[in-house]
């Protein structure tokens, strides 16, 4: 595959999972797109799993994405580390992991790779593409790259481009990884990965996923041992939580993937010109745009920017700002409200698709 940067990448493996059944006309397929640290395992349990897939509340029989009715596909992005080709995969030319020889990828490259999967499954048009955060960017990229392959789109808690604030948080995360001596210029495979750096990056990430209010509710100033230690060991519950999240993350995520994917997110920009839709084209895609009130990482104004573009082009768009205290994490947690919106929206698209 030729990448946006002009470089070549191949052969490419795409890891994906599906739920439900593809109907005879292959018109009930829904593509779920994951966020920065997500993977193809979106629902249900794998053998030995303690926790279900990352959006299990939304996907299954009778749920918003009803698997009795729809065929759900979720694939791991390229550049990732959960089965799809990424910096930790073996480079066919050298027989060693790519490391930093892996080319820089973009959101558009991720979608081009996914398009091969849809072609392989012989799906002409996806009933819906849906995702939150970076998943939402992929939703928008699907619309921009392959408008004829998409019937509806649900971008959640996302943006047409990263603001300087969002880029800044990503850069601090990347610097935390790269300044860890264990990173070894990206060539740490065969050794332990830069755990300290990656854990710090994740800790910063988690702060941005919550809100002042949700942190107050969850931790307040509670202490793990009930009184001050008068030392620098983590003693506030919020500190313990961040360490726990950081430590868990390094067990399941590749540090180089973190660098590559955050860079792809920062490069993403569909805000100028007619990048989202070519001006000449009529838009036959229905949109449901969702944001969350307390999300300060991807504030509602960024979702309204998307809506603005769509309205100017007479697109069929519904926008809802859900009143939630959970911050950016809300897209994974506020499933009651999301279900109410998505279930009916999707049903309308499904009926519309049947008439086409």
């Amino acid at each position, binding site marked *: 595959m030729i990448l946006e940067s002009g470089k070549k990448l191949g052969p490419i493996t795409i890891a994906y999972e599906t739920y439900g059944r593809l109907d005879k006309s292959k018109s009930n397929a829904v593509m779920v797109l994951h966020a920065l640290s997500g993977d193809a395992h979106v629902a249900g349990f794998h053998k030995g799993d303690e926790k279900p897939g990352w959006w299990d509340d939304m996907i299954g029989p009778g749920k918003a994405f009803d698997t009795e009715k729809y065929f759900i596909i979720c694939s791991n992005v390229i550049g990732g580390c959960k089965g799809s080709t990424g910096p930790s995969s073996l480079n066919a030319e050298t027989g060693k992991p790519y490391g930093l020889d892996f080319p820089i990828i973009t959101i558009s490259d991720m979608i081009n790779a996914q398009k091969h999967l849809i072609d392989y499954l012989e799906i002409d048009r996806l009933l819906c593409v849906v995702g939150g955060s970076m998943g939402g960017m992929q939703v928008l990229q699907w619309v921009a790259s392959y408008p004829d392959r998409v019937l509806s789109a649900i971008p959640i808690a996302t943006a047409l481009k990263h603001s300087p604030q969002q880029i800044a948080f990503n850069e601090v995360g990347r610097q935390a990884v790269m300044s860890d001596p264990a990173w070894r210029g990206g060539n740490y495979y065969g050794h332990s990965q830069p755990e300290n750096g990656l854990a710090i990056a994740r800790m910063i990430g988690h702060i941005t996923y919550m809100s002042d209010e949700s942190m107050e509710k969850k931790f307040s100033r509670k202490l793990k041992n009930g009184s001050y230690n008068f030392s620098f060991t983590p003693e506030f519950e919020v500190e313990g939580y961040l360490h726990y999240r950081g430590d868990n993350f390094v067990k399941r995520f590749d540090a180089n993937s973190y660098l590559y994917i955050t860079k792809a997110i920062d490069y993403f920009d569909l805000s100028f010109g007619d990048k989202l839709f070519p001006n000449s084209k009529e838009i036959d895609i*229905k949109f*449901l745009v969702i944001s969350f009130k307390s999300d300060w990482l991807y504030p509602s104004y960024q979702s309204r920017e998307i*809506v*603005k573009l769509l*309205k*100017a082009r007479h697109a069929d768009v*519904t*926008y*809802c700002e859900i009143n939630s205290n959970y911050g950016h994490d809300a897209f994974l947690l506020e499933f009651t409200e999301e279900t109410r919106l998505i279930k009916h*929206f999707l049903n309308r698209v499904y009926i519309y698709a049947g008439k086409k």
Partner: protein
Amino acid sequence: MQEKNNKNIRLDYKIIFKIVETGSSVLDLGCGSGELLNLLIKEKKVKARGIELREGAIYECVEKGLSVFHGDIEGGLGEYPDNSFNYVILNQSMQETKKIEFVLQESLRVGRRVIIGFPNFAYIRSRFDLFFRGKAPRTPSLPYSWYESPNVHFLSLKDFKNYCKEKRINILETYYLGKNNIIRFFPNLLALNAIFVISKPGKLEPF
């Protein structure tokens, strides 16, 4: 609209329903739970959009299969290109908007026709309340106490007509509503509500 359902439909909806042409496009500002839009889609095959501030109402709209924008009217109108809709409906929401002139101008820009419904402040009982009882008026169309009213503007039919004249806004149709009937005489005194169909100054734009 089928006769048997006729009774359950609000009088103002009935009138707006009659005004709107089949197959046209409609933007309802302050569409609530989408009852009117739903009726217009089902019976008149309109292309419908709504703007609504209350989150709860947005869910109800989506359940009806409507496309709606969650936000205030002032912020939601700006992005639409000129003449995006055959009709912009401002029914019982104009008096609640703060930047009323902006909303009116924007509605006239975005819609070829604007259907505007509002309560008449010069209704006889309002006058009675104010003049004889010395109290802020409460009427069937202005039912709120002074401390709980969402209305920030109070106007009479005459006020609105004068405003249109001053701004050279065309008044295309007028309807004066009583509780369950149409008022034909002395509307500024006897009508609870009014519905105007207006269009921007100058020549009337064809659909």
